[in-house]
């Protein structure tokens, strides 16, 4: 008997292609589990049972007909509720869009559909992507599968909890200032924030357009690379999607880290929580043992990151949320939650005449300096290793009444976002039985290298095998 809980995309794909299991069987198993666990974890806003089963049937017919299929065919995937899905309610985690049913699919969604992935549901999230805990969802918070009293991170909270609890094999996410990496870290998962422009943003409800990076969360590095193979690349509908060629990201994964120069930016370790620091340093030791060369580096403008980020991001948020003016989409502006209102007001202020130069323009200048920090560092080293979260997964309610504390959760993740460089979150152990992740940051379009490093570390440590008891 196959234990379906431990499946990855890779192993599930093998079972499907060897006809040891049918897509319908697989889909039904995950749907049942999603429906059951959603009552505990609240990781889905919508579960698409009927559609998913219909699609799975189609996949089975295609497999039975002997057609060559994508490694993602028949794989149950969940989508963050910012991803526009034709005919399926898309809420962005906000009551403002409750009952909004899009008429088109986001580019990433249609690419996943073209590869015959099965969309089993839309995941819960902080409304509009605003938050680091999932508690800003208008549909109730999601719980961390490793500790139900704690948050799964955010804003891709439902996506992380859904994958960690084994209700799907992968979930998409968006990362504007850490929204994929931080929940991945809190839930012992692999999460990619690609280079800005690597994956099309078309059809994904915008939070801050110059920062939004479209990625995904999986159990393993290999699975993660498989999905990027499908989602990356040019898109006629997104002018900011990069023409940079798309690799086969699963190729050369075993290349290892021998001779690789790994930079440790000192600004990220100076005041780090001692337990997390210790864990991070042991991770670095592992990489050294695997043949990497560790070098101390500096990213001097690191400390300006959060301030810069909360000006640029809120400015763009204030403009992007303007269309929800109560005239269309069926709900009035009163439905906006406190955090969205806070960001609209902040962003409106920073863009206002008389303040623009002092805030937005200044922030854009600092953003350039932060970007230059990374460019300079990557002249010396191949990759950077940093912590993701300054704290362990925190308790529900612990930070929600203090917005500034919540914003500081992003302290290690916003700088790669401002620079637009890719960053891969990888599990690196547990403290007090709570997962801790690290991020591997690389130069623009170095996703392949990030996967190689992540894979080498993952195969050595196998943290992904430690599943939560749900």
């Amino acid at each position, binding site marked *: 008997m196959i234990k379906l809980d431990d499946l990855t995309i890779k192993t599930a794909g093998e079972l499907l292609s060897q006809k040891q299991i049918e897509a319908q069987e697989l889909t039904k198993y995950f749907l049942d589990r999603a429906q059951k666990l959603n009552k505990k974890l609240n990781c889905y806003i919508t579960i698409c049972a009927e559609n998913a089963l219909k699609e799975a049937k189609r996949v089975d017919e295609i497999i039975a007909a002997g057609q060559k299929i994508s490694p993602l065919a028949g794989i149950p995937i969940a989508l963050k509720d*910012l*991803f*526009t899905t034709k005919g399926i309610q*898309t809420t*962005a985690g906000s009551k403002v*869009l409750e009952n*909004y049913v*899009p*008429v*088109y699919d*986001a580019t990433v969604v249609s690419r996943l559909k073209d590869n015959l992935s099965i969309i089993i549901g839309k995941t819960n999230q902080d409304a509009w992507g605003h938050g680091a805990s999932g508690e800003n969802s208008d549909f109730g918070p999601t719980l961390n599968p490793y500790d139900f009293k704690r948050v799964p991170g955010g804003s891709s909270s439902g996506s992380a909890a859904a994958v960690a609890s084994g209700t799907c094999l992968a979930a998409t996410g968006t990362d504007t200032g850490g929204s994929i990496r931080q929940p991945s870290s809190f839930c012992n998962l692999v999460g990619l924030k690609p280079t800005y422009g690597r994956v099309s*943003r*078309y*059809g*994904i*409800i*915008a939070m*801050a*357009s*110059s920062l939004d990076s479209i990625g995904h969360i999986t159990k393993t590095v290999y699975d993660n690379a498989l999905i990027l193979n499908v989602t990356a690349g040019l898109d*006629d*509908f*997104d*002018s*900011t999607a990069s023409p940079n060629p798309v690799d086969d990201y699963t190729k050369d994964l075993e290349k290892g880290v021998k001779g690789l120069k790994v930079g440790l930016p000192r600004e990220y370790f100076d005041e780090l929580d001692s337990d997390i620091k210790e864990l991070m340093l042991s991770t670095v030791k592992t990489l050294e043992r695997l043949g990497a060369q560790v070098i101390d580096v500096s990213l001097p403008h690191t400390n300006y990151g959060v301030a810069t980020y909360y000006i640029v991001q809120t*400015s*763009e948020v*204030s*403009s992007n*949320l*303007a*269309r*929800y*003016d109560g*005239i*269309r*989409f069926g709900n009035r502006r009163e439905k906006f939650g406190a955090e969205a209102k806070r960001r609209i007001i902040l962003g*409106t202020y920073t*863009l*206002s*005449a008389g303040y*623009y130069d002092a805030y*937005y323009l200044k922030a854009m200048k600092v953003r350039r300096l932060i970007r230059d920090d990374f460019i300079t560092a990557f002249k010396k080293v191949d990759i950077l290793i940093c912590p993701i979260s300054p704290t362990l997964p925190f308790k529900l309610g612990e930070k929600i009444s203090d917005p500034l504390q919540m914003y500081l959760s992003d302290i290690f993740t916003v700088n790669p976002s401002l620079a637009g460089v890719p960053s891969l979150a990888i599990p690196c152990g547990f403290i007090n039985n709570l997962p801790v992740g690290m991020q591997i940051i690389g130069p623009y379009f170095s996703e392949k290298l990030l996967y190689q490093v992540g894979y080498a570390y993952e195969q050595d440590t196998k943290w992904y095998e430690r599943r939560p008891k749900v």
Partner: protein
Amino acid sequence: MPVIGLEVHIELATKSKMFCACSADYFGAKPNTHVCPICLGLPGAMPKANKLAIEFAQRFALALNCQVQLGSKFDRKNYFYPDLAKGFQISQYDLPFSQKGFLEILSGEKVKKINITRAHLEEDTGKLNHATISGRRVTLIDFNRSGVPLMEVVSEPEMNNAQEAKAYAQKLQQIVRYLKISDADMEKGSMRIEPNVSLRKVFFGSKDPKVTKVLPPYKVELKNINSFKFAEKAINFEIERQRKILESGETPVQETRGWDEKNNRTVSQRSKELAHDYRYFPEPDLTPFTFTQDYINQLARQLPELPDAKIARFQKEFQLSAYDVEILTRSVDIANYFEEAVKAGKRHQLTPKQIANTLINQKIDIDEVFPAKLVQNIITQTQKTQLDPKELEKIVKKVLLQNLKAVNDYKKGKEVALGFLVGQVQRELKEEGGPRQVKEMILRKLKP
């Protein structure tokens, strides 16, 4: 002295809209049929710039003698209005596609140069339709126009009367039509003009530009103008209105006023004291544009002959009066037609002047009559008028003798009798003679 600046909006006649693939040709279409996620501003949708629209804008800018920028970008202009799908308009702020141009207009007999501040590209908004449905007063939104490429041309406040403003706007329209980048139809709304009007005190004798160029402390923007005639009327009304206020010792309110065509007056729409803060910032969904000077030069070389150049050439090449040339160059279609007819007429020894006369005096419909056919017609008419005068004289004499009653009637003052006589002569001629020539001969014979 009136100080007038013009903001002109022109919808570009591209096939698709500015940022999506929907048809931009919305006029008369059923509401909300030319729409997609992008121009409806649906969540997640993103703009994609229409390259042809940018090229149109650049060509127009070159025709206006503007500096076409090598680097440009779009910005978001944030404001709330029900017809604005995204809660912001994609427009251009500090780096428009072009700036600093000029246009020459005729002011009376003199040529006057009007400077152009900038010409930028933006997207048009949807349209609000106020209606009553089942007894309820409602406002309906039609998004067909949303996202249609719109060019905004801003002039310096250098016009001093309504005629100049009209001449400027007409010149813009003519250039747009020469370039075939828009039909620039005021009634259809594909060209909209918003004059800014104020009055400046004149200090006689002063030539110091600090005195003569100083702008009044207010301005009034005029909207809702859908013809050149209304523009002229609205400006004249406004000048008088402001003059009276100023003469009473007060300053007119800075505001937007609409033209009320029923009552022939302007009415206050909204006060500009609450100036909008549009919170412009660079549109993050569109990457900035860069162009090479070579590319711009190439666009400039590809420009068609523009009205001023055509006028000069027609006068020189065809030896025509300024009056004729003005009419013949009003549209590029008439000008091309004329040139073709001249070419065809040359083989038959017809002069450009003969062709111009026929074209202008007989109000030829150039869509109905081909130039070659026009030339044929002129030749036939000329032949008809070249009857042998002796032969004609003989017939006229004969007809006059046969119709003494009519001759007497005419002499008593009955004009119709003359027409009758002409008809009789033409019948004898088997309708070959031109009526004018026949009439002249009869009159000569009837002279005492």
